[in-house]
């Protein structure tokens, strides 16, 4: 039989794992092992469990970044363990010690295993399935899809429910009405599908929540499948103009965007004070102004912006009639 080779250069690394169980509480465990340049972090964990410490608990399944099981924090970064090579971490951080911790935000059950129930509940809120027409369902009508639509939708359909984006999202922590990035990606994948029949209902579910995102781009940064949940939120916002019964959040959001648009159209600059006033109205603005004055930042709000000289060029780019 062909003997597989272990002639690859070996490097010793120290793996520090943050542990937790009900009996012992939180503690750290350290393991030493030799890895080569191809060793995935899932393989590191498997070897620790089978060769050194069988008590360590984690999730892992496909080890090729399509199942989303092994989401965790490695050297503080939200990552899939399978998509992380041990020696890449050593190189990036200049240290042979690698720390492994459970994802943030979710409740830790044991070691690296967190409770995903809240995550799944958010995903199911957006009705994550296609609702085709009865005719198509019965097979009486054919639904063709243009290759370019397939390509656009497929990008957002590649969410693997790993939870990394939600674990790193600051908005879900402070705003219980924000559905979170993964649910928005999933929701938009169906909202934008020309074969779906419940557009209004979907827009109602997603519309208010879409305006609660803070555009920090963490979901964009951590997504192991490059789904860009934040992009789906932007695209959903662009559609709330079709929404009936807009909530205050949506109205304010749309006003804000309109104000920014007008400010740039008129001056070529973002006149923050004016945008603020237009978005939130005089009453809120005065309350906030008092707060701003107390913090000594009033002078920033009162800067008078002059029009930029190439304003006509900007207006042309914005599609305004000349």
């Amino acid at each position, binding site marked *: 039989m062909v003997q597989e080779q272990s002639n690859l250069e070996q490097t010793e690394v120290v793996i520090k794992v943050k542990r937790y169980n009900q009996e012992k509480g939180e503690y750290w465990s350290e393991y030493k092992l030799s890895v080569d*340049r191809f060793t*995935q972090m899932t393989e590191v964990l498997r070897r620790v*469990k089978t060769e050194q410490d069988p008590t360590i608990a984690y999730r892992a399944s496909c080890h090729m970044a399509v199942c989303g099981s092994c989401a965790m924090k490695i050297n503080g970064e939200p990552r899939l363990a399978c998509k992380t090579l041990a020696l890449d971490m050593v190189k990036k951080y200049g240290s042979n010690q690698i720390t492994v911790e459970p994802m943030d935000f979710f409740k830790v059950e044991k070691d690296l295993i967190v409770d995903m129930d809240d995550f799944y509940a958010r995903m199911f809120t957006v009705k994550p*399935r296609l609702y085709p027409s009865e005719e198509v369902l019965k097979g009486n009508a054919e639904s063709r*899809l243009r290759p370019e639509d397939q390509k656009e939708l*497929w990008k957002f*359909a590649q969410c693997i429910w790993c939870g990394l984006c939600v674990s790193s999202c600051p908005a879900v922590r402070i705003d219980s009405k924000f559905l979170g990035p993964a649910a928005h990606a999933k929701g938009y994948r169906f909202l934008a599908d020309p074969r779906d029949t419940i557009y209004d209902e979907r827009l109602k579910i997603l519309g208010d929540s879409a305006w609660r995102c803070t555009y920090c781009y963490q979901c964009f940064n951590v997504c192991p499948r490059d789904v860009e949940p934040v992009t789906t939120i932007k695209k959903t916002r662009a559609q709330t103009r079709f929404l009936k019964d807009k909530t205050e959040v949506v109205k304010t959001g749309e006003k804000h965007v309109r104000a920014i648009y007008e400010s740039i159209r008129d001056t070529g600059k973002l006149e923050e004070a004016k945008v603020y006033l237009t978005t939130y109205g005089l009453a809120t603005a005065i309350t906030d102004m008092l707060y701003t004055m107390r913090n000594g930042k009033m002078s920033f709000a009162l800067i008078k912006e002059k029009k930029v000289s190439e304003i006509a060029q900007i207006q042309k780019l914005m599609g305004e009639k000349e």
Partner: protein
Amino acid sequence: MDKLLYDAVVLGGGLAGLMSAHEIASAGYRVAVISKVFPTRSHSSSAEGGIAAYVKGNSDPNDNPDYMTYDTVKGGDYLVDQDAAELLSQKSGEIVEIMERWGTLFNRQPDGRVALRYFGGQTYPRTRFVGDKTGMALLHTLFERVSGLSVDFFNEWFALDLVLDEKRVAGVLAMEMKSMEPSLFKAKAVVLATGGMGMLYAHTTNAYINTGDGYAMALRAGAALKDPEFVQFHPTALYPSDILISEAARGEGGILRNNKGERFMARYAPKKLDLAPRDIASRSIIIEIREGRGFPGNYVGLDLTHLGESYIKERLALAYEAAMNFAGVDATKEPIPVRPAQHYYMGGVDVDITGTNGDLQGLFAAGEAACVSVHGANRLGSNSLLETLVFGRETGRTVVEYLRTHNESTSTTLEGEAEKLLEQAYSFVKSESGIHFGEIQNKLRQVMWDDVGIFRNEDLLKSGLSEVEKMRTQVKEMYVTDKSKVYNTEFFNALELRNMMDLAVVISKAALVRTESRGAHFRTDYPERDDKNWLKHTIAYLKGNQVEIGYKPVTLTRWQPEARVY
């Protein structure tokens, strides 16, 4: 122990299990899906290249379902039950159309219809695909669909054993992994859709969760496995991490090359070349490596460079990404390093064309857990996704029929039976000290790879079998060091090892007994196919420490065995 009452229980949340559950629930019956992972994490998600289908009006004009059946029968080296293969071909178009309607984002032709590509062993191109993440796309679609029905999901529940009422399956004993609380799921019917067993081998493209649980549960309950000796090795697993580089890579024109740059498949399959079936390509690669034409580290190259960057990145995104991330190779510029690894299990729980097991009333199986058999001695690429859906649906429909015509078990001893099975599971790891699961598991995987692998012979198989038998006794010394009452994964890993050992002994014995070469079962001491003595299915039972081997005829309809040349 808690008791839950269902009409049917489906074990496994992959494509086959979900499709069965869909049919059972749609008929108005109460069904529970028990899975040791969240369903989208099932191994179906890892399937890459595509799903074969003859779609009326959208296939090669020369193609028809008969060619598809013929390809499947020939590919399976005539161990295929031809009625099953005919059913598979005939239902293929309908299944793809259903998935399309439910929202699967298949790649399109410019006119908006579903696109198709070539796969190994196909006379005409008929593989439908979503880039090279077809399995993931189908699994998500089906899970999303079924999660909208009234199906109860028990995710991260570990099924320990089938609960019997005499020769009848009356339920399942399972344990919630989070709380470690056992429950008895009473049901008239149980569908095993537990997937494959790649973790038995040191090198596998399978997920970590594929430990052969369903096969072992069936064996312990007294049901037979069919053709357990047939283990498929995929020729192109990425070196050295064994991540699958889809056959789509060769379907799209990828070329296997040795260290001299030669297209060596010309020697082994002069007509089909790189698109020869998996068993032939796997053995060819090993021969090249053995004869010194591999690269240092023992691999060959899979050359895509001539396909062009944009084509590779769109149609073979995962292959490109895996080569880049896990081997540091840019597939648009240099060949991908590949070698064979375990990939698929043709053997499985013995069921007929309806998904029914003949040993135990109320037991059904579908997908990789089952042997129908449509793959015979060697499965063609893109037939497994098709099988999960076609036979998942057939089995679900059979279960519906069964539920209509059968009454519940009236046995009053089921709880006692379940308690006994729980006791057995605990006693299996009852030692206070000694070895833990990992030591034996790693050894088992190496023995299976070395002795019951791509090339087999009597000496290897005899020594393999005796090693496996020894280890199987050894595991009784096993103990669980972790005493935690939440997600005690060490306990479940130990139970998985029990399943792996039960299966390993059956595979090794069956491989030793079959003295011929057929499909993926290749014996260097019996290099020829022997239709006179061996055109028959192996039927294997596990009775205590004894593997009992019997036979069943192969169903032939229209295709008589002929030499298998490509």
